[in-house]
Structures are given as structure tokens and as C-alpha cells.
């Protein structure tokens, strides 16, 4: 479940020292190295402008890195021929912050787009699409055009479109930004459900409420760098382990350093900010060159 550097032999997505810049501008993403293991669930947070959307673009194959290696489903994207892109993209579902629905198509047509594009017949998917729309509470709006829907409804259309093709990885950019907390919960349950079925999930969000609800690693982007905080359960486990080791060490002062990441003063801070991943962001923002100050479990990725 961890989004730690290269722990999974066959991750869905692997970043290796990836940097990205637009044109000749400054690098907006620097030295990103992480895996999205198959079936994992993670949040991506960070202040606006930190490059979340760019990072997501790299994952959903809408942009190429300016350096480093990205492999997606085991394919190196740098050498990926254009005609193999569609096949990979069909395995990726994306919910855009601004939805990107086609305003001239009905809700039903918007949601069935990935299936239609994959060459499926309307009769094959009509029932499934209707069922999915009913599930997200849009059963009575199937023939409506997106501009006539509320923001929250459009968001649900976007989510339905992203998941209708049963992608192996689902990327959602602020998927709960426009819905009430109840619908937010419902959508989160949908994501969790998909995750249980084996879908890898990445949710970019500012909603800390949402982040707290799932015991999942949190990737935090700040100043182009990525920090990955392991899930709460793992940190608790590790803290308990360290506690035990400390007690052991007290008993036997000659004991060697335990396996795993070095415990440091930062760990304590980490445990303290358990409830608030934005602290890490705030910390990073206060210290532009934070590379050396942040180690321990908040690995520089």
C-alpha cells in the first residue's frame, strides 16, 4: 500500500528522478521518484501551484517529463510510440478538476464516451451506463446536457465517465470540490469500492477531512518536491516498533541501528501532524531548500 520509492516490482506507475518544465521555464517538478503499486490508494496534496496538476498529467500521459524515467504499466513513456497511447489511456480513468465534459453531448453520451471510443456498441453498454448514472444519483438526468447541471452533478458525470471503462488506475483531481459532504462521502466510498476491486487510486485534494477518512499514504507536493507520508496505520506500527526498539536499546546499549528508515527528530513531528498533512506543506513552503531538513519518513522523492 505504500507509495515509497521502488518497493513494488511491478508498479502501475513508476517515477524515477523525474523532472518537468514547460518550455524553457523553471522546473516545476524536481527529482520525483515513487511507485504507485498496483491496487494502492493514495492522496496527493500540496498548495495550489505546487504542480499537482502537472504531476497528474504525467501520470495520465498527457505530458512527457523533461527528464527522468516514467513507466506506466511497465512501459517507458519516453519511448512509447503514439499509436500505443490510446491503449494505455483506456486503462487510466481521469476526473478533471474542471470536469472537461462535452457540452454538446448528453450526460449519458458523455459517460459512455470511453466505451464508444473503444468501439463498443451502444446496446452493449447502455444498461451499465444507466446503472452507473443511477448509482451516482443522476438517473433522471441522463438526457440532460452538462451546462444545465449543477457543479456537483457535473462532477459526478465526470467521475462516472472516468470509472465506466473499469480503469486499472483512477486519477481524480479535486473530485469532491463541488459536492456537499454527504456526496463527498459517497464518492469516496465509490473510490474505496473500486480500490477494493483492485483499481489503483490517486486523489488530489485539498480536503483534509477527506484525507483523514482513509488510512492511505499522502503524497505532498511543495516547491516541486514530493514528500510521501506513509499511512497512519503504518506509522503507528513503526512508531510502536521504534518504541519497542528504544526500550530494547535502553536495555542493551550496544544494539545496532534498526532496519528501515532512520528514526529522527522529524518522526516525532510527523506523528504530531498526523491529523494535518498540510503542516508538511506549510513547513516546505517556509523552507524553500528543505531537502536536507526533511528526512526520516517524509522521504524526499
Amino acid at each position: 500500500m505504500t507509495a515509497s520509492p521502488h518497493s513494488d516490482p511491478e508498479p502501475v506507475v513508476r517515477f524515477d528522478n523525474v523532472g518537468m518544465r514547460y518550455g524553457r521555464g523553471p522546473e516545476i517538478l524536481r527529482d520525483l521518484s515513487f511507485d504507485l503499486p498496483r491496487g494502492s490508494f493514495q492522496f496527493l496534496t500540496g498548495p495550489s501551484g505546487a504542480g499537482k496538476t502537472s504531476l497528474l498529467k504525467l501520470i495520465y500521459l498527457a505530458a512527457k517529463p523533461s527528464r527522468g524515467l516514467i513507466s506506466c504499466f511497465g512501459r517507458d513513456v519516453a519511448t512509447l510510440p503514439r499509436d500505443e497511447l490510446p491503449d494505455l489511456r483506456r486503462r487510466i480513468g481521469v476526473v478533471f478538476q474542471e470536469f472537461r465534459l462535452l457540452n454538446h453531448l448528453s450526460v449519458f453520451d458523455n459517460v459512455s464516451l470511453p466505451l464508444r471510443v473503444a468501439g463498443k456498441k451502444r446496446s452493449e453498454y447502455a444498461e451499465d451506463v444507466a446503472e452507473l448514472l443511477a448509482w451516482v444519483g443522476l438517473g433522471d438526468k441522463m438526457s440532460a446536457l452538462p451546462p444545465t447541471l449543477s457543479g456537483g452533478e457535473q462532477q459526478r458525470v465526470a467521475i462516472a465517465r472516468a470509472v465506466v471503462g473499469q480503469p486499472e488506475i483512477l486519477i481524480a483531481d479535486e473530485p469532491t470540490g463541488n459536492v456537499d459532504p454527504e456526496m463527498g462521502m459517497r464518492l469516496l466510498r465509490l473510490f474505496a469500492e473500486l480500490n477494493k476491486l483492485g483499481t489503483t487510486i490517486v486523489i488530489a485534494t485539498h480536503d483534509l477531512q477527506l484525507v483523514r477518512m482513509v488510512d492511505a499514504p499522502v503524497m505532498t507536493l511543495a516547491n516541486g518536491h514530493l514528500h510521501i507520508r506513509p499511512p497512519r496505520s503504518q506509522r503507528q506500527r513503526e512508531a510502536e516498533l521504534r518504541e519497542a526498539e528504544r526500550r530494547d536499546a535502553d536495555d542493551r546499549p550496544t544494539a545496532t541501528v534498526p532496519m528501515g528508515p532512520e528514526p529522527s527528530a522529524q518522526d516525532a513531528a510527523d506523528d504530531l501532524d498526523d491529523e494535518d498533512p498540510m503542516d508538511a506543506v506549510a513547513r516546505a513552503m517556509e523552507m524553500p531548500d528543505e531537502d536536507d531538513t526533511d528526512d526520516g519518513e517524509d522521504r524526499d522523492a
Partner: protein
Amino acid sequence: MHDDLPRPPSGGSGRLLPPDAGRDRPLFLVAAILVFLACIAALGARGAWHQAQNWTTELESSLTIQIRPVDGRDTEADTQRAAEIARGMPGVQAATPRTREDALALLTPWLGEGNLPDDLPLPLMVDVELEPRAARDDRVAISDLQARLDAEGMAASVDDHSRWARAVRRAAGTAQTLGLSLLALLTGAAAAVIAFAARASLAARTDVIDALHLCGAEDRFIAGLFQRRFFMLGVKSGLVGALFAALVSIGVSFSQSPADMAFFLPRWAANPFELILLGAAPLLAGLTSALSARLAVASDLRGRW
């Protein structure tokens, strides 16, 4: 909510490429005009070829023997003799000696009636009709005939109208080349306009293209959308253009002076060629439009990623 699932909306799926009235209408007009002009050019080229064919066949299937009046010879008798000789030549169908009255009749339009003295010596003619096939390349027979007439001591000259026919053919050939070049240019212009429009509409609908790409659409799927759309546009403008070309052509052929020098005008002949040409125009326009749209879009898409 799960008990009674709503039914999927009835009816077909919406068009992925939204119609774009602001752009499509002028484009349709331009394409229709180009098809119209192309049809006129093709009909004109065809008409010129057809007309030249008629004229040259007529000219080349006959010879004229001219007997000049010479002192001490009976010109009338010479025409009779020349006609006899001509009839004896291979490939000759008929030879008709023309009398002095015929010669006078030919001069009447220029000199008026009865203005010529009766004793004025006039050159007389023999019309020689050739067998249709023999006409074209029987130059030997012509020199042969000339030699036979010379041997008789007549002041005769044989004219096979070849200078005239050459001139007519050259003019017709020029008109035809012009028509075909115009056709090629117009097709090129139409293809360029369509490619331009397809690119513009691709650029205008990046939202659709991006959404399709992110849903995993292949380039050929997207190119296919544009191809279909521009095929239909080509067919529609082709129909309108061809219809107007047919109307103009019919109008020209019913207007006065059908045998005038304007032989390159598209004259309605209602023969199979014209009908096939006009019938095929919408299809050809559709195919040209579809192909150039597809190539333009495909090359634009290739530039991405």
C-alpha cells in the same frame, strides 16, 4: 434507487463532433462554388473535344480539287475528268464536279448577284467524299491524285483541309488543356480549402479532441470523425455545384447561336459522359474533401505527444 433502474435514453448516440454552423455554411458555399466551376471546366473541356472531333471529321472526310482556268483548256470538261479520276482512286466514296453556277453561288455573298461578267474565268471545284476510315492517313492517295491530275495537264490542286483541321484541333486541344488544368487547379484549391477548414475545426474543438484522446480514442477514430463530416460536406456541396453546372450548361445550349466560336462553352448534350460527370461530381467532391480532411487531421494529430 436501485430497485427501478432508469432506462438508458432512447434514440441514437449524439454526434461527437458538434456541428459548427458559423464555419460550415461559408465552407459549404465555397466548396459548392468550386465544384460548380470544376464541373463547368470539365464540361467545357469535354465540349471542346467533342466539337473539334465533329469538325475535323467533317473536314477530313472530304477533299476539294480546284481546277484553275487556263487558256486553251475547257475548265468544265476538266472538272468532269478530274471527278472521274478521283472516283477511280481507292478510298473515294463520291466525287461531284461543281458547275460554274455553283462557283458563282459561292461568290454571291461577297460580290452580289449578277455583278460578274459572263466571260470571267472562274476556278471550278470538285467535291470529293472519302470513305470515313480512309480519310485520316491517306496522304499518299492525295499526292497520287495530284500526280494523276498533273499528268492530265490540268491546272489542278488538291486540298485536303489539313491546315484547317490542324488549326481547329490545336484550338480545341488548347481549350481542352485549359479546361483540364482548371479542373486540376480547382480540385487542388478545394482540397486546400478543406484541409484548412479541417485544421481550423480541429483547433476549434480541442476540448472534444482532448476528451476523446483521454478516453483512449485512437488517432484514426478522430480522423474518421472529421473524414465523415467532411465527406458529407463535400457530397452536399457537390450536389449543389453539379446541379447549377447542369443548369448553366442547359441554359447555354438553349441560348442563341449554338454553333458559334464559343465552342468551349459547356453545351448540354445529355450524353452519358455529361451525366456521369455530373453524377460523379458529388461523390468525387466528397472523396476529395474526406481525404484532405483526414490527411490534415492525421498530420496535425501526429505532431502531438
